[in-house]
Structures are given as C-alpha cells and as structure tokens.
C-alpha cells in the first residue's frame, strides 16, 4: 500500500488527495487546523526526549549520534556470509542483520527433501552450532550486535548465538542479539510459520522470559509491522497491528507473573518506509507517542527509557518496482529521507535489485552510501525533528494517531490479535486491500513512475514499448548445498550421540510441560543437535498450523 490517491481535473490540477490510511489532505494548513485537531504543545509534542516522545527518543537525537545502519546480509555458506559481514563492518556498518535460507527458517536440515534447491538461496544455511561458529568467527560479539532475521525457530537461533559466543569465550551477559522472533506477523504475511498460533506465541514468551533473566543486553523480539504492510496493510494498520501483536506477547509474559516493566524496554520494532513521505513521517511520530502512552496507561510502565519505541525503520521492498529498476535507487533515497525526518534510530534500505533477487555487493553498498549521504552531506543531523510545529505535519500526526487507535479497536472487537489471526480476519482484510491497491495501480488510479497503467500500455507499445530490462542476478550455487550437507554429515559423525539424545529428550519434556525451553535449547546447541532435530521435537509436540481460508 504505497502512494496516495490523487483526483485531478482535466487540466491536471489536484482536486483531492487521500492517503492510504484514509486521511484527506487540504491544499493548505494554518493555526486553525491545529486548534480544530485539539493540538496542545505539552500533551501532543513536548520537548525532544520527553514524554510522549513524539519528536524524538533522545533530547539531541542525531546531534549526539547518527542512526545505525543495518543492511540485510547473509547468503550461501556461513563462511561466505562471514566474509560479507566483515566487508560490511569494514565499510562502517555498526550492526549485523542476518538472513537465513528457507530450510533454516522452516526448521529443516540441509539434507531434508523439502530443502532441495533452497539451501543457501535466500540467506545462509544453518544446520548446527558448527555453522554459527563459521559465520561469526572473528566478529567481536561483545561490540557488534546481530539481528537474526528468523521467526518460527528464532528460539533455536537465539540459543545457538549464545552457544557460539560462549565457544568464542564471550559471556552470555555480553552479547547483544535481536532475533526477529515475531511469529504472529509471519502468519499475516511472509508465511514462515510452522506451529499453531498459541504454541508460536508460547515460544516467543519463553524467549522473552529467558532474555529478562539471562541475556541482559539482548532484545528478544522485534515486532514487524514491516511485513504486514508489505502484505497489504495501510500505514495506520501497520502500526496498529504491530502494537496489537506486541500486546499479545506482553500479555503472555505478564501472565507468567513477570512485570511488563521488566521487559517492554527490550522490545524493538521493524517498520516500513515507502509511499507518501508525509504520511510516513506522521505515522512514526504518532507511533512513538501512542506506544509510550499505551505502556504507561495499560501496563503501568513509568521508567522513561522503557517507554521508547525503539527499532528499525527501513525502506520498503514493496515500494520498489520491477519496471526500470534503476529508479529504485532514487526511490530508496527518498524513503531514507523519510526515515531520517521521522527520527529513525536504526535504518536499512532495500537495494534497487531486490524486486528481482537478493542484493549484489555493489547494490548493497550503494544503499549504505545513500544512508550515509543524509547524515554526512545533506544536513539531517543538524537539528531534532525539523518538521515539528508545521501546521500540516502536526495536524496529520494527530489524524494518524486517531486512525491507528481506530484500527486497534477493531482488533480488540475481534477478540485480540491471536484470535484475529486464528480466524483469518486480518489476513483476509490485508489480502483484499492488496488486491484493490494492485487493481488501482493497473488502472492508473494510483501512479508510480515507470509503471504504465494497463489502459496506456498499447499506446506506449506503439511509441517504443515498455522497457524490459533485467538486472544482474545473484546466481544460485549448487555447491552451497553440497558444502552444507557434507558439513552436516561430519557433525553427525563426530558429535557425542548420547548427549544429543539426552539434550533433545530434555527439550521434549520442557516443550510438553511449562518449563522454559531456552536453557534446554542452549544445551542442545552445545551438543551439536541440528536445527531439524530441535524443530522436529517441537513439530511432534506442538503440531503444525493450518491456515484459515483467506477468501
């Protein structure tokens, strides 16, 4: 869900502008608009770094520190991924954002029949601790944090990250990992789910509880409005559904007798930046405020830092077009500008070739440079929240807040997020919207540069045709699978079978009962149990999810 809808007269003058979230924009704004929206400086804005944090989390924001950049990396073998990690760190990247291949994401070992043709294709292939040792060799894990982009088996990867760090001589208290670990959004979009909804949420709960007690520097969950938006949600729904998901996780852990104040400060978010610039900026400003208010009012959180909406606001893939792929370089730059004007703490950009393939080193570096330009050359570090006080932006921020609250209320009406997903309410709603938006793009109701509406295609074909340019593709290498499988066989041959068996048995007991599965997983990882074996235990105990009908 990207651009706004513009209704123009015959001369091309804009008569009406409607944003995806359903807000109509006026030709001009003045003090009367703020008054009508009920704007109050102290209540709605306040100083940067002060509740409700609409303007910024920090009093000096980028003045004190530029944003952290995290390009998504990881492909093929762990050894190759390790080389790419080191290249990104040498080029100034301050944190890693790790991609896993699909068999790993779905809990299958590289030699499983379903893994055929997929090993190492969209990220690195991980079968056992041996692979994590190779992937993170020589990386200072006490200084460099790692986002692990994995969900259904995030608990396993989190345990493995700890086990690898321990092997390298770091203490679990020193490491900082942010597994994505947001299973509910996988069920709305992206689709890398395995277990039924309630078991999926229990695993997330276990990892949060474990992080509270054992991993003081790690952030156990990163809630992704990002993918929900990619699936067809509006910007307001992206935030609303993200927050409703967060509530589902908070409630799970709260029910274990743990005070939300002990863990909400470690939640982070992954939100999307594409489409209309102003709508994005208003969305993030409203989101910071609403999150802080919700934690304070609904969960009694008072510590200022724990009220922060922390996270990655990244340039969205759905904004990019397959047509004229080089245009995506410029698009990415504008999305990055939106992220900077929104006060993003951490950011990343989809690379221009991502409509086709995983980024080449050249395109990934180009994204990193785009982000640097804003901070180094263009002036985005000069002052905090430069758009504050704009009649338009402040009105829009209040309107956006209202829309987000409306969408959250609808989820409540459906019985909360877990129920809304089990019943398929959300999936049906976003799929239908994605369909309507796509129809609008094809009919010319929505316009994207380089994308020729259906009605104008014949005309354009006469005058030279649509451009059909391909980009350089990231080739799949059959050798990756061979390498992974032989390494996996070696692990199976050389490990202590009894310890593998015992540790998996202990995991099964915990999964069947109420004990936290995390310490058992760490033990399994140290024993070189494979991802397929650990997930296999969960598959046997929990079963697999059946999707509700989406029509």
């Amino acid at each position: 869900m990207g651009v706004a809808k513009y209704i123009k007269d015959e001369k091309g003058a804009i008569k009406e502008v409607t944003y995806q979230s359903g807000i109509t924009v006026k030709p001009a704004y003045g003090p009367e608009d703020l008054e009508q929206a009920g704007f109050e400086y102290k209540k709605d804005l306040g100083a940067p770094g002060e509740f409700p944090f609409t303007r910024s989390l920090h009093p000096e924001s980028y003045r004190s520190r530029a944003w952290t950049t995290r390009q998504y990396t990881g492909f093929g073998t762990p050894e190759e991924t390790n080389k790419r990690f080191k290249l990104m760190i040498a080029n100034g990247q301050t944190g890693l954002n790790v991609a896993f291949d699909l068999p790993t994401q779905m809990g299958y070992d590289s030699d499983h029949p379903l893994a055929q043709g997929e090993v190492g294709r969209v990220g690195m292939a991980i079968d056992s601790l041996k692979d994590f040792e190779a992937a993170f060799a020589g990386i200072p894990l006490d200084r460099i944090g790692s986002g692990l982009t994995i969900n259904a088996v995030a608990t396993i990867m989190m345990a493995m990250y700890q086990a690898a760090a321990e092997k390298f001589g770091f203490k679990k208290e020193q490491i900082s990992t942010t597994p994505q670990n947001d299973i509910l959004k996988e069920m709305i979009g992206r689709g890398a789910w395995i277990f039924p909804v309630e078991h999926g949420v229990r695993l997330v709960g276990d990892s949060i509880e474990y992080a509270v007690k054992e991993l003081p520097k790690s952030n156990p969950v990163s809630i992704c409005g990002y993918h929900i938006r990619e699936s067809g949600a509006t910007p307001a729904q992206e935030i609303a559904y993200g927050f409703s998901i967060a509530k589902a996780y908070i409630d799970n852990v709260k029910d274990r007798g743990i005070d939300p104040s002990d863990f909400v400060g470690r939640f982070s978010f992954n939100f999307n930046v594409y489409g209309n610039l102003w709508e994005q900026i208003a969305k993030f400003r409203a989101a910071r405020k609403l999150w802080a208010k919700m934690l304070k009012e609904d969960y009694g959180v008072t510590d200022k830092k724990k009220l922060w909406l922390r996270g990655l606001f990244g340039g969205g893939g759905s904004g990019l077009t397959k047509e004229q792929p080089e245009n995506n370089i410029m698009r990415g730059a504008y999305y990055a500008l939106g992220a900077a004007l929104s006060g993003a703490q951490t950011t990343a950009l989809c690379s221009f070739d991502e409509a086709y393939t995983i980024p080449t080193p050249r395109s990934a570096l180009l994204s990193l440079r785009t982000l640097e330009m804003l901070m180094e050359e263009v002036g985005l570090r000069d002052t905090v929240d430069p758009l504050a006080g704009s009649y338009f932006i402040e009105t829009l921020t209040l309107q956006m807040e209202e829309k987000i609250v409306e969408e959250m209320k609808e989820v409540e009406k459906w019985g909360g997020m877990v129920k809304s997903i089990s019943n398929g309410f959300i999936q049906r709603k976003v799929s239908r919207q994605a369909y309507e938006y796509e129809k609008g793009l094809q009919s010319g109701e929505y316009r994207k540069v380089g994308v020729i509406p259906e009605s104008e295609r014949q005309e354009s074909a006469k005058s030279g045709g649509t451009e059909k340019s391909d980009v350089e593709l990231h080739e799949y290498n059959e050798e990756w699978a061979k390498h992974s499988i032989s390494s996996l066989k070696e692990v199976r041959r050389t490990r202590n079978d009894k310890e593998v068996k015992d540790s998996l048995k202990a995991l099964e007991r915990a999964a069947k009962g109420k004990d936290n599965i995390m310490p058992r997983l760490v033990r399994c990882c140290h024993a070189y149990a494979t991802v397929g074996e650990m997930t296999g235990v969960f598959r046997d105990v929990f079963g697999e999810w059946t999707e509700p009908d989406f029509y």
Partner: protein
Amino acid sequence: MMKTTNKIRVLIAKPGLDGHDKGAKIVALALRDAGMEVIYSGLHQTLDQIIETAIQETVDVIGLSIMSGAHLPICEKLVAMMKENGLDDVRLSVGGVIPYQDIPKLEKMGVAAIFPGGSSFKEIVAGMNQLFD
C-alpha cells in the same frame, strides 16, 4: 482445446518453503473476479500435494506462484510428475519473480503460460483464457 465445463478451474499453488503469498492471493482474487473457479493450495506445498489436489479438484490449470528463484527446477519436476500422473489435459502456468531470460527455458519445458512480476491482471486473465481457446 475444449473444456468440459464452462468455468475454468484453477489451482493456485505455492510450492516449496517460500511464504510470500501476496501475489498468489491477489491473483486468486483476480481470477475469481474474472469468473473462474479458484482453489488456493495454501503455503508450503510439496509437489506431490499439488498433484494430489489437482487430481482431486479436477482442475484445468495449475498456477504456480514462485518468488524464491527456484522456478526452473520446480517446473521441470512438476511437468514430469504431471505426465506420470496422466494429467495430460491440465495446463501449467507460473508467475512470480521470473527473469525474462528464463521465459524461453520455461516454454521449452512445457509451461503453457508465464507471468513474470509486473504482469497485469488483464494479461493474466487473458493468458489463462487463451489456454482454452
């Protein structure tokens, strides 16, 4: 080729582990709006499951949605399995992240209709209808 019933029956299927299903779902909605009978397989389907559903539902077309880049090996295997199972009257189509240079390869394998990303609903509906002209 003539069809036995009036409405084209399509199985939209997501083979393999990739879970990006927006494309599959919106195409399913578009084909349904165009008057076709559409069955959606759901995610994470093995090729065996897809063949089984195609037989059970007596579909006219299997429409694969593949975003992972594995379209060549998947289509090759499915074409062979369709022959083995006697699905000679069923057409195979594929859409998703498909580079233009792979289109001739897919055609040679026997894929009847190919819809790379950016194909419009009109093109997809017309392409499906053409299979039965």
